[in-house]
């Protein structure tokens, strides 16, 4: 499958994520949109990694770790994202306990 399809899909996912973050007020949905953006990036990493490995194999260029550099990055990002989710969800839970809402527009008290 040509790399273009992966690119379009990733761009679409990422844009949805950005628009979601910008427009939604529910903290949990914003969270999900951030995850969406992260996964768009993950998708690209995997796709490019695969593509480069194929090209190198076709040109008979020796590669030390055949096509797993990008995939390793993806695992790393997943770990970080998991950690982030755990912290972020905890914050949201505390937030809900305090203001009985997860609407981020109520979170403007720090400016004072």
């Amino acid at each position: 499958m040509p790399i273009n399809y992966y690119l379009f899909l990733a761009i679409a996912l990422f844009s949805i994520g950005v628009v979601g973050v910008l427009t939604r007020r529910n903290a949990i949905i914003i969270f999900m949109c951030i995850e969406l953006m992260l996964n768009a990036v993950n998708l690209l990493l995997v796709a490019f990694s695969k593509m480069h490995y194929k090209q190198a194999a076709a040109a008979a260029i020796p590669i030390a770790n055949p096509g797993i550099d990008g995939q390793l990055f993806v695992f790393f990002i997943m770990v970080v994202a998991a950690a982030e989710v755990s912290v972020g969800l905890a914050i949201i839970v505390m937030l809900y306990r305090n203001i009985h809402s997860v609407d981020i527009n109520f979170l403007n008290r720090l400016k004072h």
Partner: protein
Amino acid sequence: MQSSFQLAFLIPLLPLIGFLINGLGRNQLSKQWSGLIGAGTIMGSFLVSLFIFQSVESGNTAVVSYFDFIRIEGLRIPFAFQIDALSSLFLLIITGIGFLIHVYSISYMHEESSSSFARYFSYLNLFVFSMLLLVLGSNYVVLFIGWEGVGLCSYLLIGFWFKNQVYTKAANKAFIMNRIGDLAFLLAIFWLIIKTGSASFQEVFEFVQGNQGTSKFTATDITVVSLLLFIGATGKSAQLPLYTWLPDAMAGPTPVSALIHAATMVTAGIYMIARSNIIYSLAPFTLTLISWVGLATALLAATIALRQYDIKKVLAYSTVSQLGFMFLALGSGAYVAAVFHVLTHAFFKALLFLGSGSVIHAMGGEQDIRKMGGLSGKLKITYVTFLIGCLAIAGLPPLSGFFSKDAILLSAFLHQPLQYGIALFTAFLTAFYMFRLLFLTFHGSFRGTAEQQAHLHESPALMTIPLIVLALLSVVGGWIGIPAVLMHEADWLGSFLAPVLSSSTHEVSHATEWMLMSLSVVGVLLTIGFAWFLFRNYRERESKGLLRFFEHKWYVDELYDRLIVKPIFYLGRLLKEWVEPRFIDALVNGVGKTVQLAGRQIRFLQSGQIGSYVLLMVLAMVTVLLVQFFIRK
């Protein structure tokens, strides 16, 4: 180097130690101790000075260098002392008279609290230290350090009773007027350093003599430097047009007037010009100017002294007048005569001031001679010594003033007969106002209150002994410079100072000299007789016409007030009320206001809305990406 010269550093160091002890321990020391330390350190300096003087007299001179005060590329200014005839003579005057006045002060200031008593002695010691530094310095920079030091001490001591507003104003006046002269002096030093690459007397004078008239040191340079130095001297030595601070300086305690404003500090200008005589001998224009300024000051101050009623003011104007005489001598090229008059004047003027202090002490603080009279019966020692001082300053033989004044008159006669005439007239005025003062104070009937009359008493021994010593010196002090016409080879001072001061060899017939001398003596005697006739029985009268003009000091203070002080005040007010709020404040406040305004506008970005932050972040990222995408090559 002569071994005694190795002790030279002790001369200024001892008063400095005295200053530190008295100044730091003023709250702990008892009066006896601070007096003892104050006078004792000066005594030590005096002894070392004697030691050094003896060595100089037998023909030794030296420049003793201690450390480099300033050392930069192309310029080295050592902290060094010059020990020669001129400085050793001044050392003796300063420490000798300084010691007597310290002793006198112990008694005179006894009513002060012990802390301000110690403060007084610490200032006095600091003054002596600075003055010694001034005369010992082997270059203009060290001289200038001492020069500023004495100015500071003068300020501190004039304003010693600083709770009195008038006194502090007098102190400010002295300091500010001195500052005008100091600026010129400083410029002269810079000029010399730029041109000659050195500030040391020896090097500068050798350079000037070697390169005068060439492009390295042109005739203009000589004139400018000599003029600037002279302006410096007019400030310190109270000459026209900067003399008005000295009469006001009488606000200080009387011993201070005697030491600083009569015997030592005010002669610093004369010392400086005498020290620079090699430069001045090459500057005939400046010399002529000096002689006329000196003469004008002498005459002006003498006329003012005719109509003053404050005993110290009379003496102050007399000091200004005598300093004028010294400048006349300098201007006539008679440097030895000028230094001679510094010496004798130090004796008799210190004596007169201390005598007036004794009178003021007896009168319980009264200084107005209209309220005195007939004090000779109660204050016998003061009277006799004061009389000797008056005779000496009037210039009657064989007292000291006669010889020095005669030397000045002779030099003026040789230089410019017109100046001689005016100087002789001024000498008569001197005799007149001094004896007016004497008769008003000590003769006639007592004009004060009955309470004061009952209080009249002779001062204690600590005050009278310095008077007696100074009276003796006033009598014999002139015998070191007896002219050849009276006694062959008796001009010890002239030959002593010959290595330092270039003296103009004058040819004058003995008959002329006799004539000049007898003219002045007869004139002075007649003037004294006239004063006796006028003031033997004084009655107060309104002064009219010219005398009124003199009584108001020629309205010089008022003139300066109109011409300089008021305009400066107006300028200051203009700057304060108009320029400052509209320009300086506006600029400073404007910066603050702009920042505040900008902050108030930018604050709206900081809304606290997470959505807007994220939007901005995304927009910024997109912008960066776009910029990178399109601009990247």
